[in-house]
């Protein structure tokens, strides 16, 4: 039920990928532990408070940040709030459909959200306007433009980059000058999939399609773990999980550099 969105792969293609996997080869010739080229562009949407376009290979995601004034939660009257949503529009893939967010889109948005939230990337305690009355609500909207695999990392990266250069639109509300959104150090997310007992980082479209298990980990600047998500119906051994995390530490360091450029 939950994976009806998964694109059907022909049996022939599936066999071909399985044979490659047995030789430790990937369909696009990469190493198991190799990312596709990553490209980040910031500040691309004028009407957004912050924005970034991220490409990982041919996967392209646009993140836009909007800030609105709203009420704080009763249990944190001094803190702003954040809300993350992901759109998988039919523009980006023949399998996507119009309508309310699918379970896949909800899982994607919630995993990105947890990485940002748990690493305290947005300093929510600095987003209070009037205690218990008015705070800033940060909306992170992830718009997938071209889907060629590994949306978790592309969306996480786009969100981090868009927040990095976002502003608080005080002027629009006549409450002072615009200022930078206070942020700390961003989380970096790494995703692995497993198929035919082969575990690869940064799955391309075909690998996403035949993946049996998926694992995403979000790491902070110290390499500590802030969020994890195992997905799909396959399983990982304890050692595989540990190995993934250790591989992720190295990738995260490299990706973090791109983000700080």
């Amino acid at each position, binding site marked *: 039920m939950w994976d009806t969105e998964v694109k059907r792969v022909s049996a022939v293609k599936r066999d071909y990928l399985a044979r490659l996997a047995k030789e430790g080869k990937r369909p696009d010739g990469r190493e198991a532990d190799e990312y596709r080229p990553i490209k980040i562009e910031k500040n691309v949407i*004028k009407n*957004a408070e912050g924005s970034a*376009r991220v490409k990982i290979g041919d996967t392209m995601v*646009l993140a836009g*940040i909007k800030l609105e004034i709203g009420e704080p939660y009763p249990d944190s009257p001094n803190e702003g709030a954040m809300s993350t*949503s992901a759109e998988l529009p039919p523009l980006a893939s023949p399998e996507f459909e119009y309508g309310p967010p699918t379970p896949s889109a909800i899982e994607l948005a919630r995993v990105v959200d947890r990485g940002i939230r748990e690493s305290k990337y947005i300093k929510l305690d600095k987003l209070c306007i009037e205690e218990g009355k008015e705070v800033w609500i940060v909306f992170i*909207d992830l718009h997938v433009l071209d889907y060629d695999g590994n949306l978790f990392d592309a969306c996480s990266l786009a969100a981090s980059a868009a927040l990095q250069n976002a502003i608080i639109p005080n002027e629009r509300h006549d409450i002072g000058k615009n200022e930078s959104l206070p942020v700390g150090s961003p989380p970096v997310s790494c995703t692995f999939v497993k198929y035919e007992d082969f575990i690869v980082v940064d799955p391309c479209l075909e690998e996403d399609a035949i993946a049996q298990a998926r694992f995403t980990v979000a790491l902070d600047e110290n390499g500590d773990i802030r969020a994890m998500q195992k997905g799909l119906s396959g399983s990982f051994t304890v050692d595989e999980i540990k190995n993934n995390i250790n591989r992720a530490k190295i990738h995260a360091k490299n990706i973090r550099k791109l983000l700080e450029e």
Partner: protein
Amino acid sequence: MVKLLIKDGIRLDGRKPDELRKIKIEAGVLHRADGSCYLEWGENKILAAVYGPREALPRHIQDSTKAIVNARYNMASFSVEERKRPGPDRRSIEISKVTSEALEGVIFTELFPRTMIDVCIEVLNAEAGTRCAGITAAAVALADAGIPMKDLPVACAAGKVDGTVVLDLTSGEDKEGEADLPVAIAPRTEEILLMQMDGHMTYKEFEEALELALKGCKKVHELQREALLNKYKDFEV
């Protein structure tokens, strides 16, 4: 309303009444779509993708005599100053409808019975004139997808501001001005595929505005053709 929108025949953004905003069009920018187009029109940033013709599903919507053209106009939540809630509102449903109809008018739909041609128009940044920009981008994406068409449709608006008929309104002109007239045509025959208007125009002003819109359409049409001749492999948002 003491603010003048036109002073000494020059508009607030420096344009003359019959001048278009800056337009940039690129075809074939997406990897997954069968055809695509990225378009910047002033501050508008629009992405269009085409999928199909493919089997129309669910089956009961199939038309045994022709393809169904299903265009969807959608604004990203961050494309406007006040965040837009995701999902279609009444305005975007109406625009999707008239856009679908305008595009269907030029496509040889009878060649593809029982299929559907999906046209996705995503407004990434909006600054007035998005429906015309969307149709213009969609037309390029349809051509990029190799969909056979009688003509390459194109759209442009004219309007009335401070009593003057002008081409291609900005947000401010649309809001403070007196009338807006978006028009889409099949450029070879000048047949009108889409026309909407709201505001206040005398019949004479309408004739003048329509003529201006048609001229605008033809200029934009040249840019569409150039874009199709020079498909880029990458694009900058």
